[in-house]
């Protein structure tokens, strides 16, 4: 196991490419940002990112991708967030695509992956339910076979950007927990992954009362005998747990990368302001240690989190085992979630009352950054996992 890594020539070219791509949008940065706070989907940015091949970064060449790895998506997530514009569907689509790469039949890969790589299919992700948050095995959305299709019944919550997605990856039970227990099957058995058209009959999206989180809405998604063709199942019936769990580390890595980028954005605003703003005499407030020291601390945490994120991404790309990549990915997400809250907090404090002016656009970051201490996995569950995995301490739950 190598502790260190260098960015290769190609990775540097990818990062340079992302920066040039975003530079094209620079004259409209403010406009794009305001659209994001109105929770409009960034259609043009999506098209440019897809044209540059990023939606195929984690898809093999045989299916229209480049297989360049998650590091490309890390650069994309970080640079977009630093630019001030991002959207959760970039990461969610990549993560769902990975479930297909790892779990789907050859036929399904050929049908879906080239479309995703070309940016023509945006995918959301639905696992959480009112009674099943951290413990995925408790989900009760059921799918029953009916001829060549399945009928889904149940309710998902906290489904991000379900309204913008072409399909939602829905985790449903095809064997109930009760039946698993009765048959003595492991609790991971009976989960099946479906790709569901959110516009299909029997599917209802109800917006939840959340603020703007990365420019997206959250939904309750209700299935009332929603018919899904059997060909939309990723892999085997009842065997969805493994491809599902393989996609969770990438989600954590890309969230960490996004937070590192949001921190860059915050530092840009905070430092620009601190260099100009004068309150007493002729000294800019940035010369006061009460202002500059916390910002320097943000910088330290950002750099450490970036390194941990790159380490996790490198581990994923070189195919380390799931638990090892999980350790780095969870550490990165944990560090990042603290960083995000700290960065926004110190930026608001630097800006004084202006920190609360929605025109300036920092206060809107608060809700999204705070969310990452809670989701997609709570920091307490990360600590449980790390205590068990890295310290050999007994499991408490």
């Amino acid at each position, binding site marked *: 196991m190598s502790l260190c890594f260098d960015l290769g020539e190609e990775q540097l*070219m990818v990062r340079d*490419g992302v920066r040039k791509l975003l530079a094209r949008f620079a004259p409209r940065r403010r406009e794009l940002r305001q659209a994001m706070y109105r929770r409009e989907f960034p259609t043009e940015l999506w098209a440019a990112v897809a044209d540059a*091949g990023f939606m195929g970064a984690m898809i093999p060449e045989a299916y229209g991708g480049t297989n*360049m790895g998650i590091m490309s998506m890390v650069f994309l997530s970080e640079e977009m967030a630093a630019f001030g514009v991002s959207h959760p569907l970039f990461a969610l689509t990549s993560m769902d695509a990975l479930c297909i790469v790892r779990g789907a039949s050859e036929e399904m890969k050929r049908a879906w992956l080239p479309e995703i790589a070309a940016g023509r299919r945006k995918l959301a992700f639905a696992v959480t339910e009112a009674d099943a948050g951290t413990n995925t095995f408790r989900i009760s959305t059921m799918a029953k076979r009916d001829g060549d299709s399945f009928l889904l019944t149940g309710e998902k919550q906290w489904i991000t950007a379900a309204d913008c997605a072409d399909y939602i990856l829905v985790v449903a039970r095809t064997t109930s927990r009760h039946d698993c227990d009765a048959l003595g099957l492991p609790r991971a058995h009976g989960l099946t992954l479906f790709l569901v058209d959110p516009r299909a009959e029997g599917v209802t999206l109800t917006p939840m009362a959340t603020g703007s989180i990365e420019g997206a809405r959250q939904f309750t998604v209700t299935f009332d005998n929603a018919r899904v063709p059997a060909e939309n199942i990723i892999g085997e019936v009842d065997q969805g747990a493994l491809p599902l769990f393989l996609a969770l580390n990438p989600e954590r890595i890309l969230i960490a990368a996004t937070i590192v980028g949001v921190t860059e954005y915050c530092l840009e605003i905070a430092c620009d302001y601190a260099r100009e703003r004068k309150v007493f005499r002729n000294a800019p407030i940035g010369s006061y240690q009460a202002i500059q020291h916390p910002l320097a601390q943000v910088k330290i945490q950002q750099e450490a989190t970036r390194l941990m994120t790159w380490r996790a991404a490198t581990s994923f790309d070189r195919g380390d085992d799931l638990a090892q990549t999980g350790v780095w990915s969870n550490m990165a997400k944990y560090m990042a979630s603290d960083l995000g809250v700290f960065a926004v907090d110190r930026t608001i404090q630097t800006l004084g009352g202006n920190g609360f002016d929605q025109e300036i656009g920092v206060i809107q970051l608060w809700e999204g950054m705070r969310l990452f201490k809670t989701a997609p996995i709570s920091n307490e569950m990360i600590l449980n996992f790390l205590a068990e995995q890295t310290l050999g301490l007994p499991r408490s739950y």
Partner: protein
Amino acid sequence: MKILATVKRVFDTDGKPKLTADAKLDVSSIDCKLNPFDEYGVEEAVRLQEKGIATEVVICCVGPEEAQKEMRTALAMGGDRGLLVKVDNTESLDTLSIAKILAAVVKKEKPDLVILGKLSTDSENNQVGQMLAELTGYPQATFAFKLTPDAAGGWAIVGREVDGGTSDVKVKLPAVITADLRLNEPRYASLPGIMKAKKKPLEITTPEALGVSVKPAIVGIGYELPPARKAGIKVASVAELVDKLKNEAKVIS
């Protein structure tokens, strides 16, 4: 039609060079990148290939071994193959040396069009294209903002940026073109482009192998920083400003 597009590895102009005690430039901490003006030249060549006008695009560089990175960046935009004329001591490369090496490459490759950036952002000499035209005997059209080749007729119409406006010239092929900023908007490398670039052939040769010996006519002897600017003063009125410009600075009469 075959196009030779040249690229140069230059220091990032955002970097800050340091001066050593013996008045040399220390650029060790500065990143290198593809000369921005060359990106316009490569882009134009790639577009002509995409339109089916160019049949082959060769990316050529005179520079150190490390310049393969910048060549791959250009190859990620497009083009078929790379040719690096390796010169490790880039200090020895003045504009005439580079032009002589490129002339030897032209003799070997026989392109119908040679497209260079109008200048490189490190030395800003703006000479290589013109010298290459002289050495090869090809017509030249510098500072191009528009390029319309007529391969079958053996001509190209080139719109040039000149003092006070633009002018169109018709040059006989083969010709040397230097690219200006308004020629196009260079693409950024896509992920598939980067993957393809990895697999494109990149030949490495030397000036000696091309029959050229590099003896620079111009050698950098020493460098110094420009004198620090003195603080300005504020004038109270326009009349005072005019007076000072007239009588102190003596820049108006």
